[in-house]
């Protein structure tokens, strides 16, 4: 593995390898000294074009735990705001010879483009509404702590599927691990044609009882102004996961940040079924494992900087 661009490109074996590695980092994390020297002297660039708290902080911390040097470039206050193109920004950052570029972008396919323009390994930390593969991997990791296997598990993903990259990556990852996935939400927020991905679709929670895992998505307020749902009140009355709907043996997940009282009722967030805090913990070790696999993986000797590849970026010139 050179890049992690999406769950779509991942095999089950590659996912298993990352998850096993994450397990060993989880053990390191219980020691007093949590840092390992694996990536000493290597540079990791976090390039974030969207606000992010947990993904960015967990990538920063993961890199530091592996002893890498980290630079985080955020959209505000950088040349990105001065109108520099993604291609030119990547060319500039690539001049520091980073081992990896972690990118979050509001646009689908941005990580794939960056991978064409740099020699560094590229990790997709969210591209538009397309994919968020590190989230999906940490969710699978979290579930594996509680369920021995996802094979045959019944997982419901509930909420604004249309605008959720987490929904897409989790759907693919859960399916690859053998789970059966149902997408549930208002008809206006379930994209036309999504059944082609092999999932079931439901517009109500009537059959939620069959789920082993309930994965709630964040419901954003701006969806009201776009008439996707008439009101948050009606949305909550139909789709909110509360203690009445969530059974005692069902597990509850959410990618955060939670809108308390919208997609989740306050009491289920802190319920014993909730894995929400465990997900955040998993985020750190899974991202360490991803950095480790991409940057030290046995199938990838680190190339010396030789002649530039054909697709190397050249500012101002067509590639």
């Amino acid at each position, binding site marked *: 593995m050179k890049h992690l661009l999406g769950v779509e490109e991942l095999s089950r074996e590659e996912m298993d390898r990352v998850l096993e590695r994450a397990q060993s980092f989880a053990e390191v994390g219980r020691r007093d000294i949590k840092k390992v020297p694996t990536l000493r002297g290597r540079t990791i660039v976090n390039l974030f074009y969207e606000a992010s708290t947990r993904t960015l902080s967990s990538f920063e911390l993961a890199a530091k735990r592996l002893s890498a040097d980290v630079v985080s470039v955020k959209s505000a206050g950088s040349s990105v705001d001065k109108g520099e193109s*993604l291609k030119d920004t990547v060319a500039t950052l690539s001049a520091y010879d980073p081992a990896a570029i972690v990118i979050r972008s509001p646009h689908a396919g941005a990580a794939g483009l960056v991978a064409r323009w740099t020699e560094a390994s590229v990790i997709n930390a969210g591209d538009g*509404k397309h994919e968020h593969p590190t989230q999906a991997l940490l969710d699978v990791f979290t579930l594996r702590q509680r369920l021995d296997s996802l094979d045959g598990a019944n997982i419901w993903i509930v909420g604004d599927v249309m605008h959720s990259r987490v929904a897409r990556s989790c759907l693919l990852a859960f399916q690859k691990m053998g789970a059966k996935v149902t997408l549930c939400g208002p008809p206006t927020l379930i994209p036309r044609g*999504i059944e082609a991905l092999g999932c079931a679709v439901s517009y109500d929670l009537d059959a939620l009882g069959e789920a082993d895992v309930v994965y709630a998505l964040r419901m954003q307020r701006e969806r009201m102004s776009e008439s996707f749902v008439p009101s948050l009140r009606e949305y909550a009355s139909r789709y909110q996961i509360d203690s009445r709907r969530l059974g005692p043996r069902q597990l509850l997940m959410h990618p955060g940040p939670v809108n308390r009282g919208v997609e989740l009722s306050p009491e289920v967030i802190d319920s014993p079924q909730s894995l929400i805090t465990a997900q955040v913990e998993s985020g750190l070790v899974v991202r360490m494992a991803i950095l480790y696999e991409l940057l030290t993986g046995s199938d990838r000797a680190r190339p010396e900087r030789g002649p530039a590849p054909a697709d190397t970026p050249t500012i101002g010139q067509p*590639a």
Partner: protein
Amino acid sequence: MNVAANGSDRGAEAPRLISRPGLGANLIVRGARLLDPRTGLDQVRDLVVRDGEIAEIAEPGGAPEVEGAEVVEGEGLLALPAFVDPHVHLRVPGQEHKEDLETGTRSAASGGYCAVIAMANTSPPIDSAAVLGSVRDRAEREASIPVGFVANVTRGMAGQELTEMADLRDAGAIAFSDDGLPIANARVLRRALQYQRLAGGVIALHEEDPDLSAGGVMHEGEVSAALGMAGVPAVSESTMIARNCSLALYEGARIHVQHLSARVSVEEIARAKAAGVQVTCEATPHHLTLTDEAVRSLDARFKMNPPLRTEDDRQTLIEGLRDGTIDCVATDHAPHASEEKEVPFEEAAWGVTGLETAFAALYTDLVLPGVLPLELLVERMTCGGEPFGIEAPRLEAGVTANVTLIDPELTWTVGEDGYESRSYNNCFGGRELTGRVLMTVADGRVAFRQRSFALGVAS
């Protein structure tokens, strides 16, 4: 060009097609396969062009000597009436970093075209006689093949007030269109259709309901669902076609529907034609050969409006082209600078270039596999001017030469030698296509010649 005089709705007017003046060609093509679906010609013959006119179509070896004429060995080559494209963007005025009249017409000639119709969504748009006059002046200096300029239907393409359509027509506008944008307001379009009785000129329509397509960047369907990108539903096109065909029927007006992309749109056109609406329409090479599966690559070269749709839509377009529901092929050649395309898909500019690959793409994907006969493709690629009053070129003695010479067996990789266009956002870039234009004679003049294509001169 002989076609220039045609298509006038009224008497003394400015010619509709403009190009750089030049000397008529003297040319003998020996032993090529001459194919003209209109005259039924399909034989190996010698083609003699004298002073820009087709002087004679002779038995092989029977061409007379013409002093100083170029002699082209045509064995194994196809000589076709050159193509007419009813829909290109030449980006003049204002966006010359994408294309200009010289590069755009050279690009067209290199694709076998002898005339193109340029859209008016320029910067500023062509919504006044002054702007129209300025681009026509430039065409007279820079265009290597005849260009017809469309003027806007509404001022500033804002969709609110009509342009001075009658004056624009007198100043040489070949037709009217706000292409690039739909005319969302039915009342405004209705006024334009009524005013057509005074001004003349077909009204060419970009059909899209902006409320239904808002935010969309690709076809709405399984692929957009998988990629998480907002979709443009097929019905955003077909509902506007249905509305506008009803208006055209009510007002007795002539409309030309641009770039059909979907099954439901073809069905609307078929219904409208059966009901007697004066409507013609076009489809592009990319909609006839590609589907939204190509967008899975997230390569912005596959971003255009209307978007690539499903295989079912593509098959319906092919069927429509075959049975005549779709009248002609149009490239919607839409050049963009690299920095507008080398960005994430959702941010990229809409449109692809197409003049240089239209024939080769359709020949490779539709003719060679036996989906469409070559004669039908040639017919649909040459008749694009007819809705605009431009007769299709013919291969017969006595007419101005509009001929393209094609090697139907030459396989080439698109883009490997660069492009004649200033831009290279071609959706076939990197693909191997069969069929290459070697030479184009437009309006009697040699407008393009493949550099490696050797010519002899008769002694």
